[in-house]
């Protein structure tokens, strides 16, 4: 006979900073929210391989090629750690992936934008990974053990991701006129989508409040966004790049940067499937999955033969 911990007891454990582990009792809504959040995060890593992977074969030096390969490989690894975390909640990786390919699961909207120049790769490292880091570090302290541990591993690896992005842009900013304008053009296209990455404004964010009580979200979207802008704005100055926001201004009274209005119509449109690359990204993932089916089946068939033993051949 198993004793059941009720919701109040569960919340007390969370408030006491005790981690919830896979076999612990948890409210169904907590479990469902985690499954959704962690799998969205995992899908983002996997889909995120595509815009950057786009430039591996065209990296301008062998060193940059090696760095980019290692970075994109890390993203695959992050996806893997996160899918593993979801599996502890009773959902197989197969099921999770099927939802993605069927268009039922979401992933970070930022990866629906195209990488059109080498400078875009710098932007992804600097802005997109920068935004991800702001979100991920607090998650290392989240209430669900496997998720927290995956995040610790991810954060250790993520450090070099942002630095290599900044490094790419630093080189461009000290380069030829064509390179400088390549960098500026990339910033013009990636700035606003990066701000949107942190999610809708707090007032419109359905799940946030409950997720914060459950300690699977530690800061609100607006807080993360503000933190991000405060960190990035001075770096842009150093790079000699102009952030495409005429309202971006340091506010001494508040101790933070003020910034302009975000076009939330664009955000919701992309989230609904109408961003520049949504269809492409999904088609690419579906294709890889389908083309690889015979390979996966072959390996499984071989393993089965070996398990059955030589006399069964």
């Amino acid at each position, binding site marked *: 006979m198993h004793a059941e911990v009720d919701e109040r007891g569960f919340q007390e454990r969370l408030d006491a900073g005790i981690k919830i582990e896979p076999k612990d009792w948890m409210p169904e809504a907590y479990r469902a929210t985690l499954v959704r959040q962690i799998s969205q995060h995992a899908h983002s890593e996997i889909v995120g391989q595509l815009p950057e992977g786009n430039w591996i074969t065209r990296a301008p*030096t062998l060193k940059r090629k090696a760095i980019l390969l290692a970075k994109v*490989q890390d993203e695959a690894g992050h996806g893997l750690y996160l899918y593993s975390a979801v599996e502890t909640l009773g959902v197989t990786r197969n099921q999770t992936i099927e939802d993605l390919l069927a268009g039922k699961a979401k992933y970070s909207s930022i990866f629906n934008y195209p990488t059109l120049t080498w400078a875009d790769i710098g932007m992804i490292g600097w802005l997109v990974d920068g935004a991800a880091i702001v979100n991920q570090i607090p998650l290392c302290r989240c209430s669900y053990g496997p998720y927290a541990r995956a995040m610790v591993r991810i954060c250790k690896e993520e450090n070099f991701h942002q630095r290599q992005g900044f490094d790419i842009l630093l080189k461009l900013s000290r380069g030829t006129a064509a390179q400088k304008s390549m960098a500026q053009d990339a910033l013009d296209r990636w700035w606003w989508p990066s701000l949107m990455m942190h999610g809708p404004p707090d007032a419109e964010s359905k799940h946030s409040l409950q997720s914060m009580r459950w300690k699977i979200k530690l800061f609100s979207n607006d807080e993360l966004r503000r933190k991000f802008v405060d960190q990035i704005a001075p770096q842009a100055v150093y790079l000699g790049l102009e952030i495409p926001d005429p309202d971006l201004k340091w506010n001494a009274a508040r101790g933070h940067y003020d910034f302009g209005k975000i076009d939330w119509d664009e955000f919701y449109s992309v989230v609904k499937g109408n961003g520049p690359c949504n269809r492409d990204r999904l088609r690419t993932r579906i294709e890889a999955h389908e083309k690889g089916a015979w390979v996966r089946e072959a390996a499984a068939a071989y393993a089965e033969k070996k398990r059955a033993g030589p006399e069964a051949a």
Partner: protein
Amino acid sequence: MKTGNALFEYLLRLGDNCLILSQRLSEWCGHGPVLEEDIALTNVALDLLGQARFWLSYAGEIEGAGRDEDQLAFLREAGEFRNALLLEQPNGHYGETTARQFYFDAWHYLALKELRHSSDARVAEIAEKALKEVSYHLQRSADWVIRLGDGTEESHRRMQSSLDDLWMYTGELFEMDSIDEQMLRQGIGIDLAVLRLSWLEHVEKTLAQATLQLPAGNWMRRGGKQGVHTEKLGFLLAEMQFLQRAYPGAQW
């Protein structure tokens, strides 16, 4: 030929093999049949890229004309590349990639084992380090040849035809030309012809385990070492070299 010139050519051959194959493998990143394979294959690409950089950097030093690894990689024409034709063949499906990888890994492993004893200290050093990585590559590609060969009927069929199709590119790996002979005489390079028997032995053993047939056929396509390539290399280089060609002299 002057030793310096011959050694330069020799190093380009070793480096270009690794560079071109690494470039092909990196095309799989994000498109692999399963996440774990994506990561594993990228490791192989990274290993080979690292080896290419060592070989090409050394080649640049030997040439003494101020060319570094990037200038050699990004500013040579197709006719100046010295890789074996096998490596520039396209990825195709996973069976074709596996066949190309296995044929090469088996050769690469044997070649590096000998190159470790080169009278040139730097060659020996690079080979020693690379051998550790390539031993693993060979285990991996053999594993996949076996699983695809002895998996399902479809995988068996695909794997067999991949091996058959790429067979004609394997002969070149064991041919000795005047540069190879010169390097061998000087104790710097190795006897490629002698490797062939060990290679065949290893390949046959793995194929047998995989329930696959060793392809037949004596006609071999050649020319990589002389810079006479297949039509595939031009496209690969156009993609790889684009930024450096479009922005001459820029730093990245």
